[in-house]
């Protein structure tokens, strides 16, 4: 009754199919609270190609969720404002587009799966309605046809008896099934980029694996770009192609997955890897990263990781390191990146 059904072309105006699918460059987001400016994302840069999976890894508060919401364009302003950088989808800078274009990009080109499906789904509408809504708003589809599409999608994400389940409400599904509903919703308009923001955190371990496998298989089938946001390196090891590690609002290391695990070039990534329990270190005490993540309102001078860093020297407290390449497709934001990379530090 309130939406004007609008048929939106599947191609973004000005899109260059040869450009990388999604490039985020030096993205900056700050929160303005009572006159104070708190940087949440200070410099996020990464590239996502078609058919690849990029894992964005970091502790809570490192800015990874804010980055994903900035890419989607769903930050709440106030208090959050994008203050710099570019988000290019097939060469088109989304941050320069008007609100109407950005709205059609959401769902059509970039979709997101949130962490806690119980609160991310509206409790008062059936899952069929919430999935069908995308077709009705973006494609001008009628109610019956939208419901049919919703059933197909529920079927696709492996919900048994989709025909009957389509009219059920979120609270009638189990945690894993709800997350599948979220995924079905994100896939509805066949987006090129799918962002999964900690999609398995709220689930138990066996279900986690099922959801990861589902995401991976759909990503391969549709040749989508998948951004997997997580704080759990173990989860990404067998699904991701590339890794971007975030710390205190910055991407501190970017690498291919094998390189990132074998030869990390940033002391923070290295410390994260040591904190994962592994079969070959069974029985030994796990290493922990000393200290707490920094408060974004009062970041340490120089490299923000230096107070917790085992490799830090005096220089680290004064000078912020630039993002520098250590090898082909492997960059790190550390003064001693080469030495860490060669495992000399």
């Amino acid at each position, binding site marked *: *009754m*309130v*939406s*004007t059904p609008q048929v939106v072309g599947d191609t973004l105006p000005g899109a260059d199919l040869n450009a990388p699918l999604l490039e985020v460059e030096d993205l900056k987001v700050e929160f303005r609270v009572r006159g104070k400016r708190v940087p949440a994302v200070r410099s996020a840069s990464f590239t996502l190609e078609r058919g690849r999976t990029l894992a964005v890894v970091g502790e809570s508060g490192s800015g990874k969720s804010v980055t994903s*919401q900035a890419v*989607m364009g*769903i930050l*709440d302003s106030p208090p959050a404002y994008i203050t710099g950088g570019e988000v290019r989808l097939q060469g088109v800078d989304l941050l320069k587009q008007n609100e109407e274009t950005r*709205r*059609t*990009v*959401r*769902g*059509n080109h970039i*979709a*997101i799966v*949130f962490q*806690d499906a119980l*609160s*991310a*789904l*509206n*409790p*008062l*509408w*059936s899952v069929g309605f919430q999935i069908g*809504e*995308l077709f009705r*708003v*973006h494609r001008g589809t009628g109610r019956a046809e939208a419901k049919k599409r919703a059933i197909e999608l529920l079927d696709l994400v492996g919900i048994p008896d989709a025909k009957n389940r389509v009219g059920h*409400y979120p*609270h*009638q599904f189990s945690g894993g099934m709800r997350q599948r509903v979220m995924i079905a*919703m994100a896939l509805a308009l066949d987006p090129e980029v799918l962002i999964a923001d900690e999609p398995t955190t709220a689930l138990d371990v066996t279900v986690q694996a099922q959801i990861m496998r589902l995401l991976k298989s759909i990503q391969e089938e549709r040749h989508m770009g998948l951004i997997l946001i997580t704080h759990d390196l173990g989860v990404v090891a067998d699904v991701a192609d590339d890794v971007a590690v975030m710390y205190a609002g910055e991407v501190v290391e970017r690498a291919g997955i094998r390189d990132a695990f074998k030869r990390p070039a940033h002391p923070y990534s290295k410390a994260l890897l040591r904190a994962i329990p592994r079969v070959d270190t069974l029985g030994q005490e796990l290493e922990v990263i000393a200290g707490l993540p920094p408060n974004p309102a009062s970041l340490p001078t120089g490299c923000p990781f230096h107070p917790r860093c085992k490799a830090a020297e005096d220089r680290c407290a004064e000078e912020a390191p630039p993002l520098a390449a250590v090898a082909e497709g492997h960059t790190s934001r550390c003064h001693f990146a080469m030495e860490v990379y060669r495992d000399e530090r």
Partner: protein
Amino acid sequence: MGRYVIRRLLQALLTLGIVLFILHYLMALSVQIRGNPAILFFGGERTPDPAMLAQVERLYGLDNGCYDRPGDPCLVPFVERLQNYAAGDFGTTLNGNRDVAALLGIYIPNTLRLFLFSTVTLVVLAMVLGTWAARHRGRLVDHSVRGTTILIDSVPVFLILLAYVYMMAVPLTRWARGIWGTESFMGQVFRPSYNPDYPWTTIVIPGIILGTVGLATLTRLVRASQLENIGADFVRTAKAKGLGQMRITVVHVVRNSMIPIVTGIGYLFAFMLSGAVLTEGVMGIPGMGYMIFNAVQRQEINLVIVGLTISAIVVVVVSLVVDLLYAALDPRIRYE
């Protein structure tokens, strides 16, 4: 869903039964302690002839011996009264011996009309202002809405009524009649008092004025419950789905914030009954509030009980409707 409805219906019936009994018992106690109201029939001063008194007592159902025993619940007359009510027999008034059922036929529709206009005014104003304030939280709009509604609400309703009747009604009526004529809608709507020839038109303004009672409360309730949902995760999801602002507000915010609002409306509806006494009194509308007020003044016990019974029924029915609306709004309640 069916079980939920049946359970709520039975609860409503039980509540109504208890309320009616309490009313009856209070009345019986007042007769037992304060003395026989049938004496009123004889002017209250003289000692009437015992045979005539007995006849009057029989006429008004006061002949049962239980009325002479303080504390006796008087169950027999209670059951008799319920049977009479069920048969549509509401008795007669002490003064003038008029049929109460016929009086109700005049009073109830007027009060219903009054409530219809005031409920619509209240709900529409509070929803629009509350939604508007919620969308502009902390900005000028928000503060103006809060200030204005509190200002309106803090002026007692009878003051607004009197100001209207004595200062605005006459010039407005004169102006409207000069343009549209006496018999038109506009010619009647601003009248300072009720006109039985225009039972709908002349209740519009009193209804709107009565609708401002509780406006600040309901507006704040709307604002607060919408703010709670505006920040909810599913609203972020709706944004991520590329829905427009209007659709997000109507489909994902307003509906989700309706439960506290429906509760508030139900509560204010019961509250409006007291406002109806004032409004009907000032504007000369022959309605239930007017009737109960006069009945209490004239010690028309039968009329008081009928009036209170009806208002109890209204309150119970409204809470039943509120309960059913919960279920209609929220599937988690429906499938409980």
